[in-house]
């Protein structure tokens, strides 16, 4: 049998360890570079210091970019939570023409190559003579964030029984009361998890953003521009450390909130391995995006 012999098990284990090393090594390295005391970006570092942290914190460009990223992320998350929940309810509760296509369409913005989504939105914006602004960034981000909320909420809805809603109606609650006191509490954590993931997705998105932002910089665009021009690299490193931490925090929280559906594993495209698979969302094309 494959992998039954002692040596083959060891070989597989070594391979897995190497893959782990490969996956984490760059992340550790880039985090260390934030503590590089020197202006020169070479290895080995001459020491470890936090001397660039304060100047980065007081850099107005960084602050503006961070502020724009936060606003864009929050607004896009809001739109995505609303539209994603609506779509999830429609798909879960009703049978209608094109129902099978909903998941596929929602995932398109991140399943298609980023430049295509970006260019399409770009031509939409110029065709309608909109000004490139916070609004256009939010339109772009919300479009590809909807799918994360949709996947999370749909996974939760599939695990809840519609009899609870019927019971609530039988007891005299109207539609709003049923939604407020029965349905919403059931989906609340999944909704929040979807929102967190949407925010994480929005916060470090760059390809679509370059096509939908005007002159302003979101944080990733600021980083990209400065890496390319080789300017202020020590501060870039500090911002990068911050971005890693900020983008992982929502994901960690979301994971705790959705232990039941395990949708996180499928939230970004790939299907769910592991024991939760049987009950997890059948994440058709659950989407993938840088």
């Amino acid at each position, binding site marked *: *049998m*494959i*992998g*039954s012999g002692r040596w083959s098990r060891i070989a*597989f284990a070594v*391979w*897995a360890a190497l*893959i*782990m090393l*490969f*996956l984490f090594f*760059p992340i550790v*390295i*880039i985090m260390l570079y934030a503590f590089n005391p020197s202006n020169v*970006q070479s*290895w*080995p570092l001459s020491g470890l210091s936090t001397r660039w942290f304060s100047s980065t914190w007081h850099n107005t460009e960084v602050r503006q970019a961070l502020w724009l990223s936060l606003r864009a992320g929050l607004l896009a998350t809001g739109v995505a939570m609303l*539209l994603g929940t*609506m*779509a999830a*309810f*429609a798909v879960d*509760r*009703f049978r*209608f023409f094109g129902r099978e296509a909903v998941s596929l369409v*929602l995932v*398109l913005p991140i399943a298609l*190559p*980023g*430049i295509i989504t970006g*260019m*399409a939105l770009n*031509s*939409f914006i110029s*065709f309608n003579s909109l000004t490139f602004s916070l609004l256009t960034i939010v339109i772009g981000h919300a479009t590809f964030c*909807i799918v994360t909320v949709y996947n999370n909420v749909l996974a939760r809805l599939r695990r809840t029984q519609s009899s609870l809603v019927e019971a609530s109606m039988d007891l005299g609650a*109207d*539609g709003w009361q049923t939604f407020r006191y029965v349905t919403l509490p059931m989906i609340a954590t999944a909704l929040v998890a979807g929102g967190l993931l949407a925010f*994480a997705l929005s916060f*470090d998105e*760059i390809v679509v953003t370059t096509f939908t932002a005007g002159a302003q910089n979101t944080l990733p665009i600021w980083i*990209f521009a400065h*890496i*390319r021009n080789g300017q202020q690299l020590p501060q*870039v490193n500090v911002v990068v450390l911050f*971005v*890693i931490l900020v*983008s*992982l925090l929502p994901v960690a929280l979301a*994971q705790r909130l959705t232990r039941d559906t395990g949708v996180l*594993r499928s939230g970004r*495209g*790939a*299907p*769910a*391995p*592991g024991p939760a*698979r049987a009950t997890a969302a059948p994440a058709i094309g*659950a989407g993938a995006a*840088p």
Partner: protein
Amino acid sequence: MNGAARTRVSAALFRRPWLRAGLLLSGPTAWFVLIYLGALFLLFLSAFWSVDSFSGKIVHSWTLTNFETLFKVSAYRTIALRTIGIAAAVTVTDIVLAVPFAFFAARIASRRLQAALFVAVLIPLWSSYLVRVFAWRLILAKEGVLNWFLGQVGLGSVNIGYSNWAMWIVFSYIWLPFMILPVWAAIERVPESLIEASADLGARGWRSFRSVLLPLILPGILAGSIFTFSLTLGDFITPTLVGGAGSTFIGNVVYQEVGISNNVPFAAAFATVPLVIMGIYLLVARRLGAFEAL
């Protein structure tokens, strides 16, 4: 709204499921049809338009000039072939890296180790894409970690920063979790008894893998390859940051045509290349059952 009116509204909605479905669908549908699908369609149309060389304005009359340029100018052919070639190389690399790992994770590792490995695959998947590309730019640079390490073990130094080799490594790294997860799920679904039967019938490890396991996990591999292939095809950040002089991708040309030359029709025409390739790829993948593994 008072209580009675609210009850009437919810009763009316309750009696008309199509109305409820319609209301729920209106928002997402309007958003997607008006903004996204409309935009995609517009993009496709504009590939058949052209730009007036004097005024720089888009001329809305049908022409195939953009596609002719694509086929005739050898530079564009080279760029398209390079993009497709590297996307294919990255896909193959990720399959080779992911399958043994996924096998270990799904079949050999203990329950607790499985959970830990799972989180460990998710962390890179969700940490910033740009940041990880930047990390490799520093690692592969002349004064980077790689050359320092090679120097330490006495292997001299390599100069692969800013080259197609660098792009190959970085793309393989970035998309690896997208390959691991579907393959892992596919291996987990293969019944143990089939592999046992194969062993009972005398197949050794490699034979069992090739004749039993591989055909069964092929849909999972294909599902992963959709991501690795598609995401590489449409990228321009990695070629910009770690590519060299001869590393232009379709995405770079598209980005320049839109952002600098303002020639949206030509950019749209070039962008249809990855779009068409992915279309064909998805059709083939669906025939082979990859969608069930997504």
